[in-house]
């Protein structure tokens, strides 16, 4: 059955690509999953007590664990995030700390430019969730620092739940009626924060295949006051051409402190592929690695990607574990220097908390924004800042309420496990060149 084996191996490769593509674009897509989250963690995640541990074993066998706390500016903070797919004896630590690092909202008419985290206190606007907003899940009560309504500092505002994602993989078996397939499951953690009339859904989606999706969805109402027919910087929403909603931009920044295998000393790598055409012959494509050893302001580019490589951990194939940054669709805002790049790698400095308008005291003369922190320092403890922009030219459908518009990105495991973490037992021996070296 030599021929069949080759085709099977090829199909497996194709499936892996499909999963990666899904990871890149997955934001919504809730299925009718019957979710059964566990209220009480079986064991506390390292580094916090059980009450502040979030733990979910998905029905496909993968367990995610993390600690949570809540901040006035950044809102939800997830820490000590670990991933334990089926077959791994122990949790694999992925991130030490993950949170929003700014939501920058400049309006096209130049009259308003908001920093929702650091000027408003994004975290203080945590909203109570109705049970129906967290289908099949658990809504945790959060003690909000300096809550907007001091009479109600405890907000039912943190939803944890699960959803079906559709195919994790599919592969036709040798016989016509044998299909290997799994419906992937996601673990979701989200909050709703109101900033003025806007409501932001901050969603962390942990897939059973190790991918993490970070997305912010803006909903609520368009600013009820920014209607102006005169300046040509809006789109008419009411009858005729009178009520123009002012167009604006949302630049969302995330800050990720990686700690693969428990080490903060991961390495950053950039890969670029260059296609060369050869006249009538088939084009070739060559991929090159650039080690990012010093702080970098990175620009997304066709056929470019980055990964964070574990300083200590290897998978069972003896390959260094890593996580790849999978960019989401973005509209880069040229109006400010900190929004002019897609990703920043900076050396860990605990006073650098916000991508712009940084508030903590880093000492006299220390810059206040992420692009200025990139100054040639050697990266031994890299911090990753990701900027995803969305230019919102409102449309009639945005009233009312405004449909959620999402922006975000993913990180996907690369060599964290030796094989597909959800590989069925019958295929467990198909690792590498399954044809015996031909």
């Amino acid at each position, binding site marked *: 059955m030599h021929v069949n084996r080759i085709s099977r191996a090829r199909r497996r490769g194709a499936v892996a690509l499909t999963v990666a593509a899904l990871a890149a674009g997955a934001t919504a897509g809730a299925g009718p999953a019957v979710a059964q989250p566990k209220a009480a963690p079986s064991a506390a995640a390292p580094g916090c007590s059980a009450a502040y541990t979030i733990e979910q074993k998905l029905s496909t066998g993968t367990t995610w664990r993390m600690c949570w706390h809540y901040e006035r500016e950044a809102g939800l903070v997830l820490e000590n995030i670990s991933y334990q797919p089926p077959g791994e004896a122990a949790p694999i630590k992925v991130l030490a700390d993950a949170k929003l690092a700014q939501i920058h909202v400049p309006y096209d008419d130049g009259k308003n430019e908001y920093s929702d985290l650091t000027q408003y206190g994004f975290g203080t606007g945590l*909203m109570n969730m109705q049970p129906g907003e967290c289908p099949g899940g658990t809504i945790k009560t959060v003690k909000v620092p300096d809550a907007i309504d001091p009479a109600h500092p405890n907000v039912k505002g943190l939803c944890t739940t699960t959803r079906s994602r559709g195919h994790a993989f599919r592969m036709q078996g040798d016989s016509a009626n044998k299909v290997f397939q799994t419906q992937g499951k996601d673990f979701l953690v989200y909050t709703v924060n109101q900033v003025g009339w806007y409501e932001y859904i901050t969603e962390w989606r942990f897939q059973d295949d190790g991918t993490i999706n970070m997305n912010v969805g803006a909903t609520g109402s368009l600013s009820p006051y920014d209607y102006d027919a005169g300046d040509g910087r809006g789109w008419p929403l009411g009858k005729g051409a009178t009520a123009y909603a002012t167009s604006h931009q949302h630049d969302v920044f995330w800050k990720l402190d990686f700690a693969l295998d428990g080490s903060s000393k991961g390495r950053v790598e950039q890969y670029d592929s260059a296609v060369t055409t050869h006249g009538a012959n088939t084009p070739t494509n060559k991929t090159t690695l650039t080690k990012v050893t010093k702080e970098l302001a990175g620009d997304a580019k066709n056929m470019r990607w980055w990964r964070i490589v574990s300083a200590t951990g290897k998978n069972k194939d003896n390959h260094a574990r890593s996580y790849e940054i999978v960019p989401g669709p973005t509209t880069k805002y040229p109006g400010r220097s900190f929004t002019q790049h897609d990703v920043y790698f900076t050396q860990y400095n605990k006073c650098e908390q916000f991508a712009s308008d940084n508030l903590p005291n880093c000492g006299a003369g220390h810059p206040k924004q992420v692009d200025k922190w990139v100054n040639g320092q050697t990266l031994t403890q890299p911090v990753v800042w990701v900027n995803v922009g969305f230019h919102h030219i409102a449309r009639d459908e945005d009233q009312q309420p405004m449909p959620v518009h999402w922006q975000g990105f993913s990180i996907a495991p690369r060599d964290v496990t030796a094989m597909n973490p959800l590989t069925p037992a019958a295929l467990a021996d198909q690792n590498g060149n399954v044809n015996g070296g031909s």
Partner: protein
Amino acid sequence: MDPGGVGGNVRRTVHRHLGKVVAGTAIAVAGTAVMVAVTLPGTAGADESGGTGKAAGSAQQAADGVGAAPGVVQQAPAEGEKGKGRDPLTDDETKRVEQLAVNQQFLNSSENVDGKRGPQRLDVELADPNPDELDNPNAPRRADVTFYDYKDDTVVTKTVNLDTGKVEQTGTQHGVQPPASHAENVEAAELLLADPLGAGLKADYKDATGNELTSPDQLLLTAMVYKATPGRQSGVLDQCGEHRCVRLFPKVKNGPWIDARDFVIDLSARKVGKLTG
């Protein structure tokens, strides 16, 4: 906060604007200096003039959500005296941090938003680890406490080690403006209400509720910190940034938002100004 939200009630929104083009369903109201968007609970299935009139059908909702039970609410965990590792700060820890951070000298030399003795407390947060502790699961637990000193317009931050009780770091910054605390928002609203420029806010409140606005307690208050930019404000607000200034986003409790963004309250100078640009 607003109980409407997703599904359930259909809400009716009325936009009232002055001196500007208004939204399709809006009606203009004269005589107010600020603008208001009124959000009223409507009856199920109620039409919205100019809108689609399509109520969120409960049958449709049930069909979409089939198989998933509504979320189960968990109460906030009971707090011990001390948190563990990366747990949120307990109330006890927060109080202790404030006490450790404000010594007699700081208390005597500083001023809060009311002009009284003692710094204005802004925030107490769990601190991030030092670089050499990043991979140490037993890193010391610390808190960062942030104050605003109205005496000299400085942000004072202190890092307190919760294990040792020591203040490990103190920093002072000028020209940095963290988000306003609730106490500052209340003070800003009082200043605006006491100023002739607050007339529009009062008028809009009355328009929306039928009642007089006499106290900030009648409002839910949030704010954006304001920093002066060239051409945007009159002279009275030029120091915003060095001074602590806010723009209020008032919302009637269980009622509409009132737009007061054209007004800036300089909490340092205790003055109100109107944006011009």
